[in-house]
């Protein structure tokens, strides 16, 4: 299990300090600072190629920045591998769905739980005592907390690749939640969804963020400005690897610099409503 959170609401859970990330001579991130407070939904917006996904990858450890530091709950995690960060409570979903297509929904979600299961091969194969308890607890957690929350009862035994895109997105969120994260990185969770699916997904994100059981801090990369402005506590604006501003949705919407930077970028403010 994740170590008991000693942070309180409003404390800094994640801090990026002067993070630089180069690909050859292209600066994907040029000295970015970001501070995420516990309990927030912190959105990252910016045009295509601004470096949003690179930022996500740096936070979760897929990329290691050339310069700068990343602190998670006050601890420097810059040099930790992705799975080490995952066991600290950082979980994520991907812009392009990264599920195991040939496996069932339930198996995909269970996989997210695997990192917290302690029993070894031998005790696992005889299934007694602690192992049994652990398995039962994992089952209870997945069924009662995740499947019920995401309303995917009717597809739990279906193979993922047979499902429509919108449901696959939901399953991916389920797998990320199985980790029991404290910090959840959501990379374009609404992309490619229809209106109804967008509304459902936005509600799930709010539930995860606000429901007493979860209280997960979320970093959200998203193009649907209607949803971003509706559900975020803070919005971070990124352009060509540089921070333009970081503020409340209202501040961002009224900032002349943001508007200037995106002049002509109409789709940035495009929304489905």
């Amino acid at each position: 299990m994740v170590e008991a959170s000693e942070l309180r609401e409003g404390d800094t859970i994640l801090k990026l300090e002067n993070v630089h990330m180069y690909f050859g001579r292209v600066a994907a991130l040029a000295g970015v600072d970001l501070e995420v407070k516990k309990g927030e939904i912190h959105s990252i917006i910016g045009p295509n190629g601004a470096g949003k996904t690179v930022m996500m990858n740096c936070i979760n450890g897929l990329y290691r920045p050339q310069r700068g530091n990343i602190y998670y709950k006050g601890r420097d995690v810059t040099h930790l591998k992705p799975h080490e960060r995952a066991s600290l409570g950082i979980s994520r979903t991907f812009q392009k769905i990264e599920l195991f297509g040939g496996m069932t929904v339930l198996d995909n979600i269970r996989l997210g739980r695997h990192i917290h299961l302690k029993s070894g091969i031998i005790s696992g194969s005889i299934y007694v005592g602690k192992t049994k308890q652990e398995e039962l607890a994992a089952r209870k957690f997945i069924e009662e907390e995740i499947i019920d929350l995401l309303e995917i009862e009717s597809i739990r035994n279906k193979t993922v690749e047979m499902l429509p895109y919108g449901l696959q997105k939901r399953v991916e969120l389920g797998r990320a939640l199985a980790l029991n994260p404290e910090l959840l990185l959501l990379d374009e969770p609404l992309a490619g969804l229809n209106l109804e699916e967008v509304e459902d997904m936005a509600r799930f994100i709010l539930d995860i963020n606000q429901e007493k059981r979860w209280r997960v801090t979320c970093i959200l990369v998203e193009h649907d400005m209607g949803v971003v402005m509706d559900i975020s506590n803070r919005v971070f604006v990124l352009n060509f690897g540089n921070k333009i501003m970081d503020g409340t949705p209202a501040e961002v919407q009224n900032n002349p610099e943001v508007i200037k930077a995106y002049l002509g970028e109409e789709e940035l403010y495009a929304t489905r409503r």
Partner: protein
Amino acid sequence: MNGSHIEITKDLTIPKLFLRQCRKYGDKKVAMREKEFGIWRPYTWQDYYENVKNLCLGMVSLGLKKGDKVAMIGDNRPEGLWSEMAALCAGGIGVWLFQDCMMEEVRYIIDHSDAKFFVGETQEEVDKALSIREACPKMERIIWDDPKGMRNYTQDILVSIKQVQELGKEMERREPGLFEKLITEGHGDDVCLLFYTSGTTALPKGALLSHWNMLTMGHNLMSVDPCYDTDDFVSYLPFAWIGEQMMSISCGLQMGYTLNFPEEPSTARDDIRQIGPHVMFAPPRLYEGMTRQVQVKYIDSTWIKRKIYELSTKIGYKVANLKFEKQPVPWTWRSLNWLASAFMQKKLKDHLGMSRLRHAYTGGAAMGPDHFRFFHALGVNLKQIYGQTEIAGISIVHRDGDVKFDTVGTPIPETEVKITEEGEILSKSPSVFLGYYKNEEATRKTLVDGWLYSGDRGFIDEDGHLVVFDRSKDVMTLSDGRPFSPQYLETRLKFSPFIQEAWVIGDKREYITAVMCIAYDVVGKWADDKKINYTSYQELSQKPEVYGLVQKQIEEANKDLPSPAKIRRFVNLYKVFDADDEELTRTSKLKRAFVENRYKDIVAALYSSADTVHMDTAITYEDGREQRIKTDLHIQDVIKA
């Protein structure tokens, strides 16, 4: 053991029977199961008793008095049934609403019924109740069940079922024995349910049913087809439908069989298969759905499986037809049927959740003879039930071994049926309702000297079976002056898996026409196989190939009909008829007068020489949003004039 030994007296009420059964079975028998979080969770009769008692006393401590109405809305869950039983135990009256009722319908029913409490399952229902709060000042409390999404709701009017039960426990401590006392005060003639009928023409009317009505109906049905307390029943159809009340409450309590609640409406089909119920009662659309599912799977399967299916159904149809004609089945056919059953029917029935089924009933609307034959060929004992909400759901049923697919059967005990000179069906039984709530005029028209005027036209055939022709007001006159039932042709059309809904027009007109709604998933799959591109229902419905397909289905239905009754022209509608657009009732019956007015342009075009009609209308989504649709619809001639 069957429960027909339970004597129904005027003193008996549903709560009294409930109490008696709880004492009899206690914690030795499972009263209901609910699938939750992927596991079937049992509740014994003792649990049932405790939950109802606490809820009932809680409601009483919140101010529920004898005769007060409790409105309920939500999916089928134990909590829903407990709420109803709790309301009845306190001497209250239950009012059920369909889960998918639009705001306006909810407001009308809550206001008209003077409901004091509103019991909603989830945040969605609570939202509905909160938004009509101003318009319904008589509503005092909103009780909710599922905490999901309820974290930001702090209104004083809200209270959770758990809190109500806590209040009930306190009440029990203060006044032990109050629950039993409340139950003893009830009498069989008291009203127990206020049922809003679906109303194909006007606003819903509230039918008042007494305990005596409900119990005698269940008793009489069970004396025809006994059930046993070891049986399983799956409760998944809306409680707002009288058929579900009849099986879950009236028959369920008398027989003591186990009720099973599916996890979610979307998982019901799998859950039914897991339970394998012994008895089933559903409206025709459920059976139509199953037939469609089988037909589609058949098209999809391999050559060898298709051959086995074809051969087995041929045998099945032959044997079923012999039985329909009441002729002995020769041993050759009997052994062939055994083979067919072993190779195909048994497995198919298992997939449909029908492997343990003793009796399957259909009712609430007309079912086509083709569907009927289909199930009998599978060896499913499907029987027709005829009745109205006003007679507590049932007056007529097929008897085992005496099933005729074009009739609805013979009256259950204590029930008389007669036909007026105009051909209207009248019935009389102890289950005939007390009248409509706050509607003297409608009561006078429907209830004369204890006879219930059904508004259906029909006749009694040479075997004493009742044949229901159609709703009196729907019966059409053909161009040659003969009467004709549009429903008959519509159910024939709907036997095709490609057709979801059909609307046949032609009263006092030169010829018959039809408006067709294709089944999106099936036709969509057919189009995929044929490499036909489409992006929406609207586009698919207007493809010339799809018109060709629908025409073939119409020609099939036209076969062996007299020429004036044949469909001459048709149009594919750009959407399916929907209850949210008020085109269907909540029990999926077509509201003819309404669609006739709504689609008057289409009707006009069908009776002109035009081959297209321009449409410009609004459709309503489930959450109440509207969208405008502008489109041209093609009209096709089946028979050249």
